[in-house]
């Protein structure tokens, strides 16, 4: 079964159309990378898929069922979103934040059950955060907070994980760490992942397919190699980039300034 089917998806904000009719499918167990320059409509797409934004037109089906038919909490038990923003307003401990991922599983006052604690502990272990469980999340570095948000999403026990720029604020080593974790979650737990990024270089070795979004339209959808096509990318970025063949696939760089 497809995890996600998007048909004729159209969305506009008050100041203009952001997505102009998208059609694509994500298979269960797949990692799809959604790439594109700033304001291509990537974040809007994720918001539409997790139901926090209602599309202007078109249809979204999750695991075969149209999105409007999903009750809110059941949807939150199926789809987890890790937004770009990782700031937490008050000094909750890491464990407390991860337990918030259990919100759609609990009821009312939401005192943690043994099942909630087990899910949270598992998520902490998988993200290598167990030793920080009692630390206030506001004391952590950006990279650690990113991992906490990932752990929180894992505690949600979703079938589909949506990641918005998961490496945006990370240094190279932390980027590698987060990407390896996402790959492991997909391979070991079979989690379906949609990852949004402006950085195409995260695709090789992680994404099964890539979708290139430009000005609200699908420019290309296919294998990572097909999408990292220099001619195609120049249509978006002009001459400001160069693409080089690396050991595990092509890489894209900003062009060096003229000497």
């Amino acid at each position, binding site marked *: 079964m497809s995890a996600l089917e998007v048909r004729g998806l159209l969305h506009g904000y008050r100041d203009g159309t952001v997505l102009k009719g998208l059609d694509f499918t994500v298979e269960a167990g797949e990692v799809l990378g959604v790439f594109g320059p700033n304001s291509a409509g990537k974040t809007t797409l994720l*918001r539409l898929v*997790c*139901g*926090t934004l209602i599309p202007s037109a078109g249809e979204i089906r999750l695991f075969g069922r149209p999105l409007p038919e999903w009750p*809110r*909490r059941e*949807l*939150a*038990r199926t*789809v*987890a*979103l890790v*937004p770009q*923003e990782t*700031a*937490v*307003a*008050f*000094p*909750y*401990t*890491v*464990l*407390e*934040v991860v*337990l*918030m*991922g259990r*919100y*759609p599983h*609990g009821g*009312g*006052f*939401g*005192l*943690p059950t043994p099942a909630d*604690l087990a899910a949270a502990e598992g998520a902490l272990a998988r993200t*290598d955060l167990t*030793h*920080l*469980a*009692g*630390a*206030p999340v*506001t*004391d*952590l*570095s950006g990279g*650690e907070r990113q991992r906490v*948000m990932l752990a*929180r999403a894992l505690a*949600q026990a979703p079938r589909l994980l949506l990641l918005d720029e998961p490496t945006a604020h990370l240094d190279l*080593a932390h980027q590698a*760490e987060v990407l390896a974790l996402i790959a492991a979650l997909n391979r070991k737990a079979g989690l379906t992942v949609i990852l949004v990024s402006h950085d195409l270089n995260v695709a090789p070795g992680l994404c099964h397919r890539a979708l290139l979004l430009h000005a609200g339209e699908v420019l290309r959808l296919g294998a990572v190699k097909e999408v990292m096509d220099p001619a195609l990318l120049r249509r978006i970025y002009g001459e400001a980039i160069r693409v080089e063949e690396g050991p595990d696939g092509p890489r894209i760089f900003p062009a060096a300034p003229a000497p």
Partner: protein
Amino acid sequence: MSERTLASSVAPAAIPAAPVTARRLLRLCGGLSAALLATLLLSLSAGTIPVGPHRVLLMLLEPVLPLPAIWTPTEAAAVLVLRLPRALLAGLVGASLAIAGGAFQAMSRNPLADPFILGVSSGAAFGVVVAVLLGVGPGGAGAVLAPLFGFAGALLAALVVYRLASVDARLPVETLLLAGVAVSLFFASAIMLVSALVPAVELQGIVFSLMGNLAPRGPAAVAAVAACLAVGSAVLLAVAQPLNVLALGEEAAAALGVEVERAKRVVFVAASLVTGAAVSVSGSVAFVGLMVPHAARLLFGPDNRVLLPASLLMGAIFLMAADVVARLVAAPAELPVGVITAFCGAPFFAVLLRRRARGGAR
């Protein structure tokens, strides 16, 4: 640099993080209730006619237990007629403002929110003045109507501040404080304007009493405030967990299944209700809603399922104690309790603001 991936900016926590459990909640509320009772006894025994705490306790138990009366009628009058209603009122007002402050802070994700700073107290005070203008007296039905007018004024002010301050569905500190100041000054001026135009002696008295003091009130007024507090805090506790999740940001909370707009509306209405009722009997007492949730957060952590009940009890303790100071410091004259809370609260607020300015956003 090989250990970098395991290195962390924070030392591993020595104590494992204890999540909220029913037992921890009960223990905490039990402890704070005992402290509240002790503060009540202290408040009842302190004054120009000192009565020992044990005798106060016997006096309170006398209606239910057959005890010998070891006190004079003067002492009984001082404790039961003068001090008890006032202490209860202080406790109710402190509890109301503190739980409202805690809820406003959680909802706005802003630790500087407080009914006084947001202008909600001023709005409530204006509502009470309107009630007086319309002929609602202090006794009888007025005891119930005044809190409702306060509620309406508080809700109006809260909505105006929220509208003015929100930028892209966020409430930045700067705009929130500025909107709060503007709304607060507007309603304070409206009160002054009304009191200048309407030369009713009764109104002058009300305006004075809205400066933040605990003038004696009848049992009906105390009961009305208690009822509003009971309803309001039950509603706020019911949204404690959604408010926790809201700390992750509105987008993340919505994706977790929180009905964000509904939760915010619930806080607006319930926190305005308790604030409005409190202000209708005490005027706008400054900073209680700011300081008490902060202290509770430092002691017990930010989880609203603990923070809100703890703020409620600590607010009652704090204002009851502040009232004792207000009664004693210039005895036999009495200070408005708002003077005491402002003297504590203004420096506290200044320290918080400085700490934020230096980048410590906690």
